[in-house]
């Protein structure tokens, strides 16, 4: 069983990251998955996180308490949820938006938002991050995530999103694990 927390702020498409990961797992990898979200009363802005549990068996307790994987796309999200990450868990960061603490031993970072901006698709930073996340963690297969993207986003932006996904995936292949 893998417990994943995607965290950022409202408007970054955090919920979509959870939806795509869950769909990739259930519809295309043949696994079980549950997605829960916490949100405040605000319509936008504010903290946003999407929690996904992936398992080969039926999932009973649906909430993530101690994630194995934390994907943080905002400083506040990192600060708030870093203590919950299981020992030996995988930490994935947007390096332009999150500055890890000095004591952080091991983490994976990508300038997802900057890469997306360079591609002219700032809004696709979440999907760039998903590409990176898939390559680093192997939580879902590349093929499954690509299928999930095809089946979820609007037809006219499928190609753009697949391009963004690919950019993140390829970045992971050359990115060293950050250490301090």
């Amino acid at each position, binding site marked *: 069983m893998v417990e994943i927390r995607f965290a950022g702020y409202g408007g970054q498409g955090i919920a979509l990251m*959870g*939806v795509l990961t*869950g769909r990739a797992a*259930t*519809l295309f990898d043949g696994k*079980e*998955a*549950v*997605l*829960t*979200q916490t*949100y*405040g*009363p605000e319509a936008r802005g504010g903290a946003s996180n999407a929690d996904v549990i992936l398992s080969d068996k039926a*999932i*009973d*307790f*649906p*909430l993530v*308490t101690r994630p194995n994987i934390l994907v943080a796309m905002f400083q506040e999200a990192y600060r708030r949820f870093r203590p919950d990450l299981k020992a030996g868990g995988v930490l994935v960061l947007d390096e332009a938006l999150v500055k890890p603490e000095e004591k952080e031993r091991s983490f994976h970072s990508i300038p997802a938002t900057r890469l997306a901006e360079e591609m002219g698709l700032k809004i696709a930073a979440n999907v760039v991050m998903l590409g990176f996340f898939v390559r680093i963690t192997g939580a879902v297969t590349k093929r499954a995530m690509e299928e999930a993207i095809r089946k979820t986003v609007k037809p006219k932006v499928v190609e753009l999103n697949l391009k963004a996904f690919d950019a993140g995936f390829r970045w992971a292949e050359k990115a060293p694990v950050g250490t301090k």
Partner: protein
Amino acid sequence: MSGDHACAEGSLAAGLGFFAGYPITPSTEIAEHLAIRLSQVGGTFAQMEDELGSMAAIVGASVAGARSMTATSGPGFSLMMENVGLAVMMEVPCVVVNVQRGSPSTGLPTAVGQADVMQARWGSHGDYAIVAYSPASPQEFFDLTLRAFDTADTYRVPVFLMADEVVGHMTERVVIPPASRITRVQRKRLPRLKGNGRFLSFHTNGKDLVPALAHAGEGYRAHFTSLTHDERGYPTNSPDVHDRLVRRLVNKIKLNAGRIVEAEEYRLKDAEVVVVAYGCMSRSARRAVDMAREKGIRAGLLRPVTLWPFPESRLRELDKGKKKKAFVVAELNLGQMAREVERCIGRPPATLTHAGGKVLEPEAVLEVLAEAGR
């Protein structure tokens, strides 16, 4: 698919013809989804001025022949109670969804609660009986919504879907069966109109205690009133008629409880500690049962799928046997269904309660369970 969307799709699979509602978190996605989907299948979606109007509208639409539903949360549920009584008294089938949040009053709008379960049973004034289901997953929210319409039509009664915020908002795989595999119960209807349209609109054969329904516009001269009425549907002040009517309204559910009640049992066969939990808390309890078994504690879960009627005969059965079992009730209110369990087993169960806002974790259930089993 989220639980709320699964509920909306379940209602469509049931042949929903009319939805009236006033959006409220955490049920809003049901109305939102149906606002788009219902017109695609020829149904009518109405956003109402408030929940009083919503409830009144679905009662009216049902008498006109449509399967009808509304969806709300605690604050709206309170406002609907007057017209729930109307539906009970006039025996109008309808489905009311309550995706529960922290209460009382407007409480915690975006967070989970399970404290409206007694209101579902007793919220409107007077003696009556209804049916209330408690889904524990999006799939079950779909399945039970489908079933709720059948139950409503079978017994001519309002049926409640008492979901909670966690089940309404969580997203899981939902399998929707092909339309050819979905069967629907038909309302007990009157034969084709003969003569002048006079008939006894509240006459029953004394067996299933459910009168046949005349739909508006079919030519039958049907009279519906919230006042105590005789078999013709006309108001009366007779204490005897009143007692007969109210007793039948209660008995048509009570005496058919064996057909209505549903409960899921998990690892109960040799269980010495029985946890009773429903909705989101049942998922926590299920994990706790597995954790307890690993520690050598013989635990099992009884999950009421119908909160009302409550699976009381099953609970009494479970409590029979040489050795007295321990019972634990885990719920997101301060012991509402625990009282029901106490009524069935004749002693207070151990409880794990919380006023709501979060789901209690399996570890917390395990702790109470281990203590109770000692």
